[in-house]
Structures are given as C-alpha cells and as structure tokens.
C-alpha cells in the first residue's frame, strides 16, 4: 500500500514514543485485584445485576442498545418511527372495520343523544308484565338483573 513517495520511517520512530507511556507503578496489580473483586461480586450476586445477565443471555439486544446509545439522534428517529408505525396501524385497523359499525373510535362510542335519536325513529310500545321474579335465596344465587325484566319496551310494536 505504501507508495514510493511515502516514507513513514520517521513517523514510526515517533510513534515508538507511545510505547514509553506507562501507568503509575503498581497499577496493574491493583487493576487485577479490582477486576477480581468485581468478578467475585458478580458471581456472588448474579440476580442483583440484571444488566450483566442480559448481556450474557441476549448479547444481540445489548449490541442494539449500545448502537442506539452511541447515536442519540438515530435512537430518536427509531423511537419516532416506532410511534408512527403504531399510530398508522391503529388508523388502518379502524379503517378496515365495516362502515356501519361506526367508523372511528369516537363514533363507535355510544352517546346518549345518539341512542335517543335512533330509538325515537321507531314506534315504541310499553309492555308490562305482572310476573315478579322470585327473591334470591342468597346473595350468590342472584342472577344478573338484565336477564329477568319485569317490564320492557318493545320497539317493534308486537
């Protein structure tokens, strides 16, 4: 790769200077001790460090996380895209529902005024029954009140 015009000998000699940069005396002994202590703590309490467990069990997830953490702008873009996708899916699912069932979520919610308007267009007939539901023997044998109606409207007029 080195072209005839390029001579990096001087640079390589200068770079040798970096080999002489050394940490304080005794540093590597302390480092090994610190690592051992942290490794022992990890080993003794594996349940207390879920991050390390996650790194072991799902390294791909950590790689994704680290790559997102390294690029905050990209992470924001991914987050915004995910939100947009969820909103788009919601809108699509609402569109795909039959038009008679109401259309949007707000429309499907039954308003009292809407109910009155719908029901008022039909002829109403009040039917009264004299049958009385027997009293429940105890609280747990009570049936829902909607099942036995002593009186009710018959919209069809029969």
């Amino acid at each position, binding site marked *: 790769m080195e072209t005839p015009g390029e001579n990096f000998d001087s640079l390589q000699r200068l770079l040798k200077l*970096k080999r002489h940069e050394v940490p304080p005396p005794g540093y590597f002994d302390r480092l090994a001790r610190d690592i051992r202590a942290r490794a022992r703590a990890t080993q003794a309490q594996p349940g207390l460090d879920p991050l390390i467990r996650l790194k072991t069990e799902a*390294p791909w997830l950590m790689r994704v996380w680290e790559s997102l953490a*390294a690029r905050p702008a990209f992470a924001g873009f991914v987050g915004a895209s995910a939100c947009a996708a969820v909103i788009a899916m919601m809108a699509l699912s609402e569109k795909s529902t039959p038009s008679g069932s109401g259309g949007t979520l707000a429309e499907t919610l039954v308003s009292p005024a809407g109910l009155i308007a719908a029901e008022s267009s039909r002829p109403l007939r009040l039917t009264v029954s004299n049958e009385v539901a027997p009293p429940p023997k105890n609280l747990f044998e009570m049936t829902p009140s909607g099942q036995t109606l002593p009186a009710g409207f018959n919209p069809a007029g029969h």
Partner: protein
Amino acid sequence: MATEAQEAKTRAPSPEAAAERKLVEQARRGDLDAYDQLVRRYQERIYSTIYHMTANHEDANDLVQETFIKAFAALKSFKGGSSFYTWIYRIAVNKTINFLKQRSHRQGMSLNDLDCNAENDPDLVALISHQTPRRDAALAELQKKLNEAMAKLSHEHRMVVTLHDIQGMPHEEIAHIMDCNIGTVRSRLFYARQQLQGLLSDYLK
C-alpha cells in the same frame, strides 16, 4: 509423511494455547483464580490499547475493568472459535469505540508519564536532537503533540495505528479483531499514517 507430520503439528494446539484453553474452561466453571491468571496475562495489552485510543488513564482504567467483567459474565457464550485473546480484544475494541462515539464532545487528555527508557531511546533522541527544527522540544511536548494528532484520526484509523504501529500486531490479527479484511486494515493504516505525517510534519523533517 513429512506433510502429515507438519499438518498434525499445525492442528495440534501449542502448549500456551492449550494452557489458555484450560484456564478458560476453569474460569467458565467459576474458578476466579483461573480468571485472575487470564486477566494478568492480557491486562497490560488491553489497557495499552484502550489508553492509546482514549489518551486518558482514568477512562482506560474504567474501560479495561468493564471489558474484563463483561468477558467474565459472557464466558458461557464464548464458543472457542477464536482464541480468548482475540475474543477479549474484540470486546475491548467495541467497548472503546462505542465509548469514544458517546464522548465525542469531550476531548480531555490525561496522559501517563513517560518511562525512563524514553530518554535513552536512540530513535527518539535522534528525532529531538537532529531532525526536529525545534531542538529544545522536550519529549513531553512531543508526547502531547503526538496524542493530539492521534485524537484527530477517526476511531477506526486510530485503532489500526494503535494495534499495528504501537503494539506491533500483524495485519491478519487486526483484521480478526476488527472484523474486517486485511485489505481494509492496510488501507486504513496507510491513510492514518498519511494523515499523521501531515499533522506532525514539524517534528518529522
């Protein structure tokens, strides 16, 4: 016959590799003494790589610890496809590059002192007393300028210079560690040197 013997020799792991594999197996079973031996075997090289990349002792200290703790926690996932040395180097390199991407706004240097041998290194003495126009430039100043120039390289270019020109690692090994092909390593090395040469031209004449 000779070929078979040669093949058998290449297939058979060296005693060092076999010893390392044994230590890895023991460490995987939770033997802290075995892991301590692995740490002591590689900590200086891993530290140096991270230090030359960050030019900051405190950051290097944190990252080297995190590297070894992450490796310890992930030993179960180490399949043995590469050597432990290459594997842990990969962890260190990825961790360092991610760290540098995150701290791109901060460029604080915390340089280690030069050892006493630097003043007696004939190459360095020659650079100061003969080739540098500013003969009074002390080694410490040269060290600072060199680190500033290194900091201007991209992370990948700096990593290749660190591994090859400072630590003396062969291209093939760097390619394994950085997960790229040898051509990419060579080309990165060439452009990094070219850039450094331009940045340090006052000290290289």
